[in-house]
């Protein structure tokens, strides 16, 4: 009890250690995963984020437009675990968990991050060029599992039914062998 007494008495004459929070804003520490920011211009609608999201907080609505598709993303922050998987899996850095933690709202809409990606869908179908070395990177990256590569038989094939023409494989190919044919 004596040490407590000493601490209590000395505290009486010290400045309080309380942060004057609402008046002075406090920044979160670096690496804090707060409110999700979504950059629609970077997104290419691969859908990886939707797949890895464990609480299913991301909804994707597709609208067909003349030049392609408008993909509306909604990140429901009241459903999010802030694990950061979507951020990690997004190759294009279109998703970012910012350090903004001010997520108290009376209106549910204030807790939804949304954005639209305007995607121009290529007309042609995915084809593989001569340069292919059958490295299987494209198959591994493909969010839909549409590409099959047999390294021993040296066969590259794509299931056009499954392919959404997102272009992940095209940018992943080290040899630039993939393209959407005319």
């Amino acid at each position: 009890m004596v040490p407590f007494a000493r601490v209590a008495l000395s505290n009486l004459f010290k400045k309080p250690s309380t942060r004057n929070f609402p008046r002075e804003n406090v920044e979160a520490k670096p690496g804090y995963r707060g409110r999700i920011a979504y950059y629609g211009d970077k997104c290419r609608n691969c859908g990886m984020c939707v797949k890895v999201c464990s609480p299913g907080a991301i909804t994707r609505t597709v609208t067909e437009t003349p030049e392609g598709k408008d993909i509306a993303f909604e990140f429901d922050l009241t459903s999010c675990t802030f694990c950061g998987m979507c951020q990690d899996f997004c190759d294009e850095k279109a998703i970012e968990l910012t350090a903004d933690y001010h997520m108290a709202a009376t209106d549910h809409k204030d807790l939804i991050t949304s954005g639209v990606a305007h995607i121009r869908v290529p007309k042609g179908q995915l084809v593989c060029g001569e340069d292919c070395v059958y490295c299987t990177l494209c198959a591994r990256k493909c969010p839909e599992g549409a590409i099959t590569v047999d390294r021993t038989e040296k066969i590259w094939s794509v299931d056009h039914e499954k392919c959404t023409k997102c272009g992940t494989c095209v940018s992943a190919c080290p040899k630039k062998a993939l393209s959407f044919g005319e």
Partner: protein
Amino acid sequence: MFKKMIAAAGAKSPWIYHINTGSCNGCDIELVAVLTPRYDAERFGFKLAGTPRHADIVVVSGPVTSQSKERLIRTLEQVPEPKVVVTLGSCPKSGNVFKGSYSIECPVDKYTHVDVSIAGCTPKPEAIIEGLYTAAQILKEKRREMK
């Protein structure tokens, strides 16, 4: 005569009752952290009440398991008006990672009107203070509207 005083005091002395409906305890310890010297929510008159009868703000955390559903409803009823319901974290609003489980009866919105929801898994204590502060202001409004 006293109406304005009472309404003004409502925002200055909100007492919190905390219900855990199967939370992982993350939100709960953060709520307690709000009362520690670093954050000191008592500056605004916040106090943890021991019983719903004393409460102004009910803080719900956890994804409303089917075992706790009835108890949650009953406890919410027992809080005298004006009251404000605050959800803490993602679970009570959506079920978070437990969504779709057979034993989860979320969201809380099904049972009561949620006035403030604090997002985060878990929310930062500052966010909780912010949310509770908002709730206190709502409390004042509700008191003003009451006859």
